[in-house]
């Protein structure tokens, strides 16, 4: 029965060659082949993309929001990690 036996999949679509796949949503499917077809039917109706990645949701591991203070706050005051003190010569236009 769908939903019970069909795992949830996270869907990533790349809009054109050279960019990154973006997370667009999730859907249920029995296996990877069906997940790709479902993603094609649900998430590319308006030419949103040319490439689809599907990953079963259980394989996506996420950080715990409660740990955010210890994971991210320390980076806030470490200005020496940013390359802001280099003076670029004017001739370098695309750095």
């Amino acid at each position: 029965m769908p939903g019970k036996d069909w795992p949830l999949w996270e869907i990533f679509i790349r809009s054109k060659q050279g960019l990154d796949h973006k997370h667009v949503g999730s859907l249920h499917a029995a296996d990877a082949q069906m997940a790709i077809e479902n993603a094609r039917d649900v998430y590319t109706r308006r030419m949103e993309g040319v490439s689809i990645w599907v990953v079963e949701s259980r394989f996506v591991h996420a950080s715990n929001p409660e740990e955010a203070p210890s994971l991210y706050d320390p980076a806030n005051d470490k200005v020496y990690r940013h390359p802001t003190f280099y003076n670029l010569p004017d001739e370098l236009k695309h750095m």
Partner: protein
Amino acid sequence: MNINSDITSTDYEAPAYSGEMLAAVVEYILRLADNALILGHRNSEWTGFGPILEQDIALSNIALDLVGQARNYYQYAATLVNRSHESPWQRLATGKNQVSEDVLAYFRDAPDFRNCLLVEQVNGDWAKTIIRQFFFSTYQFALFEKLSFSADKIISAIAEKSLKEVTYHLRWSSEWVIRLGDGTPESQLRIKNAIAELHQFVSELTSPASYELFLAKYNISVDVSKLRNAWQARTDEVFNQATLPPLSLSAKQAFGGKEGKHSDQLQSLLNEMQIMQRTYPGCEW
């Protein structure tokens, strides 16, 4: 040649057919259009009722593809009909003596329709809808592969564009045949019942009408009897993967759709599909 939904622009100059040839080409195009419209309509009846959201959308997409194909063909047919004062379809012309795609779709009755009997069958359960789609898409794929080389540039352009859509329809329906066949005892029973119900309509797909054979000599149409082997091979391959027995055409085969001899099911479908246009001709929204 890139073809959008409107082919009546001056980019696409229709060949200068006349007389018997014009009449045959119109019949042929109507046949291609009617198949697509009727199956598109049947599939659209699932919208909102699909077993799961993603499949509801998938089948609705397929319905839209088919109606889009029908539009292309009806527009072309309308262009040709409007050129010919002797065309029997001129009887549908409204005040300005022009027929349009809408007129052809909404103001013909069941005996005027040239679709095969398979596409007008009621949806039944998911298995029956899948088998109907699989049988039809296998046929459409084989047909459009060849029709992309038609001597008629507009027919070939529409076929070439449609082939991409049909490639997906065939893939999607094949996958479902395999899942239902090689699935649970219930799914296997349902798909076997669906095959038992629908296989009587299979032979008509590859049985050419007289006008098809006539036009095949000029390489405008495809003699569909030549598609039989490809159709059979594809069906066998998918049934095999689905752990289903090879298709055997044991039931008496049904014919007549291409000549306008339809079941009541088509008239019921048309009653529902055509009611708005017939009640309020020319209505827009």
